[in-house]
């Protein structure tokens, strides 16, 4: 049997004295889109950080059956691409320079990312990512002059250029207006159609989680509150328990403003 794309077993992590993750286990197969939801401080972002070895953790994280701690940095980056929650920038790199760095793990040489020297497949990946995110027309622009949404799309393009098997998005629609929220989710849905790929995204938007997620991991205080298919997990009782409010009632009330 093929090992699962991602398997997280008994994951625990501490930040200082605080236990932020406790005994978290879940797995993900290819072609799936896992939504991680839960209140602030539930440990969602820490779980994402652990998957990219950004925090020390106990337990194990296996990618295609292999412990990620045994992988080299570049090797891990070819498996997983990450869009961080925020990407503050302070030097005037161009959009294209940032996106091209996404190819780092594939071509570690000093000048291999240059437009002139890079092979066609290399340029094609960068081009594809720029086109897909709608940033192609702004390739020469300095990242310092971009709006929050454009910056977010630039770094999404970088993660796509990385050509990972698993794409991890930490609140991808954070800085985006409604139109781009829709576009980004549709674009990722399109990206996911190629076999051998999977997506994990952390989100606060339960409607988006329900609409696009094939499965949902609901977290509360560093623990797994529920995990399974979206419609099984996002029940009125489970949400009430985790969010300590009547989520269903609230959502309906919000929706009724539009009728």
């Amino acid at each position, binding site marked *: 049997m093929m090992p699962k794309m991602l398997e997280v077993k008994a994951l625990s992590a501490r930040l200082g004295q605080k236990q932020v993750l406790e005994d978290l286990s879940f797995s993900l197969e290819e072609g799936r889109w896992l939504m991680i939801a839960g209140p602030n401080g539930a440990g969602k972002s820490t779980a994402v950080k652990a998957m*990219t*070895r*950004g925090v020390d953790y106990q337990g194990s994280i296996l990618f295609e059956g292999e412990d990620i701690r045994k992988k*080299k*940095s*570049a*090797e*891990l*980056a*070819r498996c997983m*691409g*990450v869009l*961080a929650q925020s*990407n*503050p*920038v*302070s*030097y*005037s*790199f*161009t959009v294209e*320079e*940032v996106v091209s*760095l*996404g190819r*780092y*793990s594939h071509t*570690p040489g*000093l*000048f291999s*990312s240059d437009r002139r020297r890079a092979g066609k497949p290399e340029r094609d990946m960068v081009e594809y990512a720029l086109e897909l995110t709608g940033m192609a027309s702004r390739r020469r622009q300095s990242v310092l002059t971009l709006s929050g949404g454009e910056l977010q799309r630039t*770094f999404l393009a*970088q*993660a796509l250029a*990385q050509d990972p098997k698993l794409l991890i998005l930490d609140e991808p629609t954070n800085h985006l207006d409604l139109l781009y929220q829709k576009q980004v989710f549709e674009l990722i849905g399109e990206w996911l159609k190629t076999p051998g790929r999977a997506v994990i995204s952390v989100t606060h938007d339960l409607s988006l989680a329900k609409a696009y997620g094939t499965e949902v991991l609901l977290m509360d205080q560093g623990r797994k509150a529920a995990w399974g298919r979206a419609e099984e997990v996002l029940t009125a009782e489970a949400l009430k328990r985790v969010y300590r409010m009547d989520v269903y009632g609230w959502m309906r009330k919000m929706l009724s403003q539009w009728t």
Partner: protein
Amino acid sequence: MQGLLKNPLADGSTLGVSSGAALGAVCAIAFGITFPALPFAGTMVTAVLFAFLSLLLILGLAYRLDHSLSTDTIILIGVVFSMFVSSLMSIVITFASDRIQHITFWTMGSLQGKGYPDALVLLGALVFFGGAIFLHSRELNAFAIGEENARHIGVDVRRVRLILLIAVSGLIGVCVSVGGNIGFVGLVTPHILRMLTGPDHRRLLPASLFGGACFLMLADLVSRTLLNPRELNVGIVTSLAGSAVFILIFYRARRGG
């Protein structure tokens, strides 16, 4: 360093690393640490060692206070560290008052009486440490975009950072042991050149190398001619010019410019 720390004000002199290296050199003179094989290796080795230790200490402290290693924290700690080092230096000088003339040279920075052997040593250090840094230009670019981002795209953050920190300390240590504490060249040059070359380190590093050398030569020229026949220490000239630019940069950064 500005790239590695994603901090446009980072530099050996603002972080106190140069002062640390100078302290190392001063200690070597005051306590007579020498290596029999090479005449001036004593000051050099201690300078490199002290530069590296200073860098570790400053970054370690800054990291404990503020995990993002933000601009203000590092600069603040650098300033405090520089003061701490200068007081240590005073203590050392008190104990070795007979060599005081020799010691002030290191705190001021001067190219007086330096010849080709010194230039050769510098060249060697440049090829070795500078080469190590240049080979990591792409990683430096990634660091300049953000350390977290660097990790995400597959840079071995810990290893590369350690290599770069060692190389930087090596360079600063050797430079200080030859020329004393000549401040602000490393701060000002990349700033001006970044406007010309852009932030890509594959162009910025070589440009800064030549730009920095030109700046130092000009400063040296000024220091030798301005009060002719008396000669100023070149460190005074670079610090004067550098601090003016520093304030300008800080002012613009604060206004979001």
